[in-house]
């Protein structure tokens, strides 16, 4: 049985079926991401004004790597351009050029995911350390030259460490007002214009060690939830576009118009994924 209206438009909508289908699916995706953005707004607005390193109070600023986020945005925008150029290449019956643009699109998608993975790993090895005197720092741990992930104070004690080496982040204007509940040594490093400083803390002076993970602060909970969900969409889209570009491209020989429509529909999903990131990046990284 042949599926109707895969190429010929339906008389009532004037569209082929897959186009109506993808827009209905994108409508459901708008509701999904809209709900998460609403949750972010509520969490953000309700949080009192607090800055790093007070990640336990208020809303932490300056904890995400903006140059990497900006580069990732550029990668996704580039992939949006290449996927639409792939579609128009098919319109011009240039299959070779279509394949080249699809390859670039998939490479951009995988690049985005690779960069995201590195960002996540950096977060898992980034800590907020609260001292018993009430001051706090953030930074990466240095345990015998390695930067461990997901450690807590119990892990530090289990490793029989007496003095914990930390590559401490030094505040900048985005991170927090200077002099707010930080050790004196960190304050001096800021005054000297340093960006990071190796400091050593006695384990007996440490009250808690928490990685930048969801349980540490709602900011990380919503950040990881939204970016991971978006990342899943990027992965799914990449798999589909790869299939269309390479394995499923046989249809170009048997039914080129239907194949072109498939690329258009896949491209629409890809542009939506880009659209979500266009809002996600400034909201989570910059504001």
């Amino acid at each position: 049985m042949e599926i109707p209206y895969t190429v010929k438009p339906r008389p009532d909508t004037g569209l082929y079926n897959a186009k109506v289908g993808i827009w209905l699916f994108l409508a459901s995706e708008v509701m999904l991401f809209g709900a998460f953005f609403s949750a972010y707004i509520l969490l953000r607005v309700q949080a009192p004004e607090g800055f790093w390193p007070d990640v336990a109070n208020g809303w932490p600023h300056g904890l995400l790597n903006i140059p990497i986020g900006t580069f990732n945005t550029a990668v996704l925008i580039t992939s949006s351009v290449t996927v639409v150029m792939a579609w128009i290449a098919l319109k011009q019956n240039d299959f070779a050029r279509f394949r080249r643009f699809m390859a670039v699109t998939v490479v951009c998608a995988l690049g985005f995911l690779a960069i995201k993975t590195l960002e996540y790993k950096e977060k898992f090895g980034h800590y907020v350390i609260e001292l018993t005197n009430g001051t706090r720092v953030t930074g990466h741990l240095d345990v015998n030259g390695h930067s461990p992930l997901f450690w807590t104070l119990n892990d530090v004690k289990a490793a029989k460490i007496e003095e914990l080496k930390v590559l401490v982040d030094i505040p900048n204007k985005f991170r927090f007002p200077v002099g707010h509940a930080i050790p004196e040594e960190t304050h001096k490093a800021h005054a000297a214009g340093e960006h990071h400083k190796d400091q050593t803390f006695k384990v007996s002076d440490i009250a808690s060690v928490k990685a930048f993970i969801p349980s540490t602060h709602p900011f990380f909970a919503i950040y990881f939830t939204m970016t991971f969900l978006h990342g899943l969409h990027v992965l799914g889209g990449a798999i589909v576009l790869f299939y269309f570009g390479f394995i499923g491209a046989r249809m170009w020989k048997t039914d080129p118009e239907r194949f072109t429509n498939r690329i258009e529909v896949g491209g629409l999903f890809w542009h939506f994924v880009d659209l979500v990131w266009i809002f996600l990046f400034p909201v989570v990284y910059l504001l």
Partner: protein
Amino acid sequence: MSDSKHSGAVAAAGHHHHDYDFAAHKKVYWVVGGSLLVGTLITVLAREWEFSSVALTVAVALFIASIKAFLVCAYFMHLLSEKKAIYLILVTTGAFAIGMVALILLSDKDPVSGTRPKVHYVP
């Protein structure tokens, strides 16, 4: 068989699109892509600007993002020249999305007793 059927189908597809100005459309896509990259840079640089209030900061960031979103929707997703059925889907979606966001944000004004978040979050 497949070659003649394919070339016939391709010819039919090409004939269907012979009025389509490919060069002009491709130029538009490159220009839109470039504009999106520039918009991203402006968004990042805007972080250095000191605005008089948080509300204004948020408004500027979302305004730039909305322009970028319009470019993606209008040109990459071809919404400038779509059929009514798609516009109907989008308008309905927009109405439901606005309603959903409004309900979620308004729920802050009507909390269940005892569930109000503490002023200082304690993990």
